[in-house]
């Protein structure tokens, strides 16, 4: 039961993108079209879950026993970078169509604050394995959800009349703000 609460918390109330501010660069960059948003969302769910799991294990099995917690940042980012490399190579061989459609977004996941941030958060909150395994994909789903919703809105912008100075990023940010406001409403749920 409390795991379900944790998941809902991660997807809606503390949405990793709209409430925790993690993952904004790709958010504004890949949300112009629905297909790219969906593709990026899926890729993030996959890599974030894997990355958080592996870094959690590294933290518990290596960093803590050897008192190397201060190396956390370096260890985690190296794990993520290596993971994304492997995922790229793996995808190229086994799912070439998906690999091509994701294009440059796959390597960009390395610098995605949401992935690194989720890994850091699950360690900071001191989750045990079960909680972490729920938290990671739930956070990533929250990210994907926000991304897809946003893409839907932005596709409408193409046919709306927007003053020149507001175009593109500025209106994107303001819209994100309004979405964030909507998500703020979920706070009443807990």
């Amino acid at each position, binding site marked *: 039961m*409390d795991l379900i609460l944790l998941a809902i918390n991660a997807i809606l109330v503390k949405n990793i993108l709209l409430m925790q501010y993690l993952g904004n660069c790709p958010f504004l960059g890949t949300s112009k079209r629905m297909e790219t948003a969906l593709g990026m969302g899926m890729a993030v769910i996959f890599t974030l879950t894997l990355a958080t799991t592996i870094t959690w294990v590294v933290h518990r099995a290596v960093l803590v026993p050897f008192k190397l917690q*201060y*190396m956390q940042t*370096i260890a985690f980012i190296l794990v993520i970078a290596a993971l994304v490399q492997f995922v790229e190579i793996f995808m190229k061989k086994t799912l070439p169509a998906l690999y091509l459609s994701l294009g440059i977004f796959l390597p960009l996941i390395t610098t995605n604050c949401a992935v690194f941030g989720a890994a850091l958060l699950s360690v900071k*909150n001191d*989750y*045990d394995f079960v909680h972490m395994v729920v938290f990671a994909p739930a956070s990533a789903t929250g990210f994907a959800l926000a991304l897809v919703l946003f893409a839907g809105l932005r596709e409408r912008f193409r046919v709306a009349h927007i003053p020149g100075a507001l175009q593109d990023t500025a209106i994107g940010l303001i819209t994100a703000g309004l979405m964030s406001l909507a998500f703020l409403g979920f706070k009443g749920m*807990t």
Partner: protein
Amino acid sequence: MRDILRMVLVLTAICLLSAFSLTALNEGLAGQIAKQQRDNVQVPRAREVLGETPADFAERYFEIEVDGVSWAVFPRVEGGRCSAIALESTGRGGYAGDVKVIAGVDLESGAILGVRVTQSSETPGIGSRVAEPSYLRVYRGRPLKGTAFSLRAEGGDIEAVSGATRTSAAVVDGVRRAAEFVLAHRDEIVRRALGGQAGS
């Protein structure tokens, strides 16, 4: 082949240089970092549970190691007497991990002065209610020797926060361990406290 060798060498060299410098820096700053952590997290909580504390309270901190576990003790020393201590203890069995508590113990009356939570990763909302002083008052005045430090539901003396049984159990566990430690090592604690050495 030479290219790959060069790549590996450069990357390894950079990693080693980085690991070496960071380890050195960490060694150098570890003491300072621990002190900051203490002064900003544990000491305020310890002050909360003990009430009045003398000016040199933070400097009197020391650690006692028993069975490989290090206990952080904040004694209240006034006029050559150690009247009370605040002790940090780890309670196991919380929902999402351990819960760290600070228990204040009056060494003269042998009763608990207060309890505060310093670290918990429990479910926000209900779980965090366990950290509220209004709930933690349930520990005030409990004698170390006479109290059964477990939840009412398990035949003990402490009520749980309704809906947060496991978290409450973790807090009780922490307080119980602290009580047992004080009862077992009271003389050692007082001796160290009056020894006047800062640190361990």
